[in-house]
């Protein structure tokens, strides 16, 4: 498919923005300026000031000499960049791939998008109309390469350049349209080369000798002899579905229909490719330029429309349509292989592979925001580290669970200090006090010494004792450090069944 690019030129980007914010500036000449080498330099001028001959790069005193009642405002250094980024995000409604083209433009990769608006002409008109309605003075052009679109938007007359019409469109334009350094364009003008057409017939070798390699490269890019790629502000997801709406959608029913349609197309595509999504986000581009979004995650790859719809349904109420949503986008940032499972002849009693189980966990985690955990053994003696969360429901054991040492069924996350009476040097305690209650120990096992794993953490070892008090309650106690250290402490760490 022939590629198409739209270049949008904001002729007075910063001044338009100031005029929008301060309506009293609409009808008066004003400039933005910034200090440079001890002088005030004009960095932008509005239409009225420009028509009086004030241009960027002029010293403020000169400008004041031309118009005495000139309004002067301070320019902000990164204003243009921030404005362009915001406008580029807004432009995502026209195409998924939008790039900021500093200092004063936006570039859209409109390949395969124009027919949705009824052709190049009406696509371009729609963009310009919307941006003008927002209050920006823009010119936009569409062509096969970003270079030609850029050139035509700024210097051309006919803004829609047809397919394979690059050279014809460029011929009457001045050499500035090639985006060259000011030095080279000046030299071209001095040589009497005022039209690109005059350059076309010249041999490449002499052009390279006189104007350098960069000149040849620019020429190739503009003419489409070399591919010029744009850098989108948001990376385009490979699994994405879009649904533009004729009228802005404000009702829940409308949003649900949009979601259902998008899910059906995306899931059909995933099913064809034997994939399933793990993460999905449903975005609504609102009329006022904001984007509302809900995200879901699944525990295992899924392309089940009903299940995914249910997951989204819980969260749909958080979408605020405000004045209406113009464009719905469904993205699947994380996609994994999903092979159809062979159905078993008779159903087992529900293992971890059961789809109903993972669908239940999806519902739980999407409602509460808490991921369910399954634990696998980890090869550590230190009790807190002896288990690790499994990365998925079906992850297999790599080591066996240890059963040789007794472990308490209830383990305190943080061991609690206790007061203990214990015979020296390493006998189990006789008495201990926990939460104001005195426990007299009748039976005990131990000690089981667990050393710190020095490559992970420094500190003292623990000597664990299993003890049982007079009423039959069983505890896991430990002494931190050697008896000789004098600074040892006793802790309770768990309760045995």
């Amino acid at each position, binding site marked *: 498919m022939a590629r198409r690019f739209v270049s949008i030129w904001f002729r007075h980007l910063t001044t338009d923005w100031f005029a929008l914010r301060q309506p009293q500036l609409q009808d008066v000449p004003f400039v933005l300026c910034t200090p440079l080498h001890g002088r005030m330099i004009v960095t932008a001028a509005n239409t009225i000031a420009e028509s009086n001959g004030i241009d960027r790069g002029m010293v403020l005193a000169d400008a004041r000499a031309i118009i005495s009642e000139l309004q002067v405002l301070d320019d902000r250094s990164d204003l243009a960049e921030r404005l362009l980024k915001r406008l580029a995000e807004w432009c995502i409604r026209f195409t998924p791939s939008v790039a900021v083209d500093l200092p004063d433009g936006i570039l859209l990769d409109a390949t395969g998008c124009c027919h949705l608006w009824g052709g190049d002409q009406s696509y371009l008109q729609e963009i310009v109309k919307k941006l003008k309605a927002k209050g920006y003075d823009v010119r936009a052009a569409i062509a096969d390469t970003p270079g030609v679109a850029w050139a035509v938007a700024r210097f051309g007359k006919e803004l829609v350049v047809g397919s394979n019409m690059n050279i014809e469109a460029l011929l009457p334009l001045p050499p500035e349209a090639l985006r060259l350094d000011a030095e080279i364009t000046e030299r071209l003008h001095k040589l009497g080369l005022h039209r690109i057409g005059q350059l076309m017939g010249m041999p490449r070798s002499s052009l390279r000798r006189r104007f350098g390699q960069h000149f040849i490269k620019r020429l190739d890019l503009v003419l489409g002899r070399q591919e010029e790629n744009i850098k989108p502000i948001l990376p385009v997801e490979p699994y994405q579905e879009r649904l533009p709406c004729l009228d802005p959608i404000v009702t829940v029913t409308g949003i649900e229909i949009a979601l259902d349609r998008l899910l059906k197309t995306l899931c059909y595509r995933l099913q064809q490719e034997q994939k399933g999504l793990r993460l999905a986000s449903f975005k609504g581009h609102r009329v006022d330029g904001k984007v509302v979004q809900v995200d879901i995650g699944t525990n295992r790859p899924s392309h089940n429309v009903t299940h995914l719809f249910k997951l989204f349904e819980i969260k749909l109420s958080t979408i605020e349509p405000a004045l209406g949503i113009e464009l719905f986008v469904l993205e699947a940032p994380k996609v994994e292989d999903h092979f159809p499972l062979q159905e078993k002849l008779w159903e087992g009693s529900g293992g971890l592979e059961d789809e109903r189980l993972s669908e239940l966990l999806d519902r739980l985690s999407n409602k509460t925001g808490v991921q369910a955990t399954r634990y696998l053994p980890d090869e550590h003696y230190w009790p807190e580290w002896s288990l690790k969360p499994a990365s998925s429901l079906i992850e297999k054991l790599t080591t066996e*669970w240890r059963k040789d040492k007794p472990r308490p069924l209830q383990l305190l996350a943080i061991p609690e200090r206790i007061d203990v009476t214990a015979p020296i040097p390493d006998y189990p305690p006789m008495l201990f006090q926990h939460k104001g209650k005195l426990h007299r120990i009748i039976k005990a096992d131990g000690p089981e010494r667990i050393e710190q794993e020095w490559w992970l953490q420094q500190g003292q070892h623990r000597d664990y004792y299993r003890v049982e008090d007079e009423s039959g309650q069983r505890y896991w106690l430990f002494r931190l450090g050697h008896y000789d250290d004098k600074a040892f402490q006793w802790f309770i760490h768990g309760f045995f069944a």
Partner: protein
Amino acid sequence: MRFSIEFKGFIVIRTSHKLKLLVYLTNIISFTSFALPQHLHVVMRPEKAKVISQLQQDILLLQGYKPADGSAVDMGLGLISEAFPNGSFPLGAVHEFLSQCAEDLAATSGFIAGLLSRLMAKGGTSLWISSTRKLFPPALGSFGIQPDRFIFVDLQKEKHVIWAMEEALKCSALTAVIGEMQEISFTSSRRLQLAVEQSQVTGFILRKNSQNINTTACVSRWKITPLISESRDDLPGIGFPHWKVELVRMRNGKSGSWEVKWEDGRFQPVFKQASNVQVLQKKTG
């Protein structure tokens, strides 16, 4: 005692009415039979006893309790099984466990782990839902269950625990769902019970430090407390886990109190049944 009951009329009575009538009749009969002195039991005619047991079977069937056949799981509880309806631990129901302190909770979770080891013997997955979980998964290994067959859902709020438990109990892919919570209202417990009737999942509610022991729709209410362990052959150190198992309430069954040990990977009921008779006598007046 004279009974003359006409059974001919039952043919035309609708099922719902039949159930009520049966319950009513059986209550009268069983009440009188329990209230009778022990020696009168022997006097009761054998056909009458047969009628009563047949009626009780019918009621259980109508209430959804299947008779003990191949599908029932033997929990290995020995004598305690006699307290259950049909003599088998009710699956597809919600059981409630009360515990007062962390020590009780450990004993209760040990007892539940023992039950689960039988339930999950043929495979299956269980869900453990809690907002204050202290359970240490590796310790489940000593009760004969692979800890990686449990999925833990650690939520922030208790109301989420009840919601999650209801959702989980509806999922027939699970074997059991264990929920730790402090309080549960009658309505919530009724919802849980309705959920399991569809899916046949077994639910366990662990209530910790509950201030308000209210009526619930759960099929049973248990209280497990630790007892001094007895070691084999007078070996020093701590013996096998040893609990006092109190069955406070059992729908269509009997209550009672027993001592149970967990030994060699199974329950070992200790044959001391001192309190069982007393509780029954108190109940029947």
